[in-house]
């Protein structure tokens, strides 16, 4: 369940992986979403290896079809991840954006 306390705790993790460069090591376009993501479908999820060696998973945003390739350089950005729950706190998280 979406909890304001959990959202608040997770914000601390975001700072250390924000604005980091890396490259795509795999990606997929999701056509059949889970509950809560119906309005976003279809969307792309990718695993990227950051330059510091860390690997993370996130949605890919602000991209063209030609950006969908293994090895494409990306940067981590801050984006809204879900609609707010009943308490109205908006969850933010990391997504990937191709770098030009």
């Amino acid at each position: 369940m979406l909890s304001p306390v959990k959202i608040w705790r997770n914000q601390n993790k975001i700072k250390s992986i924000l604005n980091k460069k890396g490259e795509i090591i795999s990606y997929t376009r999701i056509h059949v979403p889970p509950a809560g993501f119906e309005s976003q479908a279809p969307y792309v999820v990718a695993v990227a290896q950051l330059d510091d060696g860390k690997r993370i998973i996130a949605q890919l945003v602000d991209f063209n079809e030609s950006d969908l390739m293994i090895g494409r350089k990306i940067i981590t950005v801050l984006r809204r991840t879900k609609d707010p729950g009943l308490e109205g706190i908006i969850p933010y998280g990391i997504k990937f954006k191709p770098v030009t």
Partner: protein
Amino acid sequence: MKVTVLAGATTKFGELWDFSPRVLAQQVTAQVLKESGLAKNKIEAVFVGNMLSSSLGNQDHLGAFFSEELGMNVPAVKIEAACASGGMAVHLAALSVISGQYKKVLVLGIEKMTDYKPEMVNSALMGASSDAERETGATFAALYALIARAHMEKYRTTEKEMAQVAVKNHYHASLNSHAQYTVPLTLEAVLKSSVVASPLKIFDCSPISDGAAALILSSEKNTGSDIYIAASAPSTDTLGISQRDDLTSLKSAKIASRLAFSQAGVGPADIDVAEVHDCFTIAEIIAMEDIGFFEKGAAARAIYEKKTWLNIGRPVVNTSGGLKAAGHPVGATGVKQVVEIYKQLKGIAGKKQVKSSRIGLTHNVGGTGATCVIHILKKN
């Protein structure tokens, strides 16, 4: 290790709207009690493998739920390891009789999924992955799609080769009256089916299913059964795929397989028949490599060339139809796999019988490989 299997049974798997979990449990338990000739009061403990009773059905305390339903006032507990719940239930049941604390125990793998909308089920299944993965809106199809694309990139595995896994398993399932899908699939039909999470199409994916499977295990001598569990080996790996050393392999499966072969004193070449966790077609390809049946990068072509088909290859893989065609009621699958191998070794597998099979293996995976449980069964 020598844990005797006294009986094994499954219900039909599928969309079983007429049957509640209580009814499924009664059906399958009656079958194993009848086969073993045991009175109900001889069962000393119940190990329930299930994942979604809480998130979908609001029912915790599942051990007590089923011990009441079955009329057995004995120790009973739910074991959860995502899609490896069934395998883990078998493991803990086996340990319980080896310990000497219990003499005869019941393993019940059971899942009810089709009462709910697919979006809700897909969301509940993501309880098996990490917070980070849930936050992206990923589904299990998406996570295995990421694995598939990495495997295709590294080993030139093709969509056609992945599709052939589905064709094989549907062919085997056409010989299994308990399978969810008994109609064979063509390669063309798989390749033409709609994309769920690229590159995986709907026919690359196992379905949402209801079903139950049961086993009675004992460590006693002279039980009259000549089929026993010679190895029961779980292992774990990271919850999320991005933390894995290698996206194209499940480390937990490699470790558990090595442990199991060591426990049973056999190797991959000794296995006549196997049930592996083909939640998605790519998962069977990777399973064959992780267990050691084929070299890394060689399994896709080998399966395409029918090296694991009934009456053609060896080991014969997924005679039940696997998860893909027999269905995947999550908590039941790991138990059903052991039931299938038990029936193969006992010679009662019917039209899908692998002749003269003496040693079998099961491979049950939780999530994208965060848990793997390997069992090896032998015929005396």
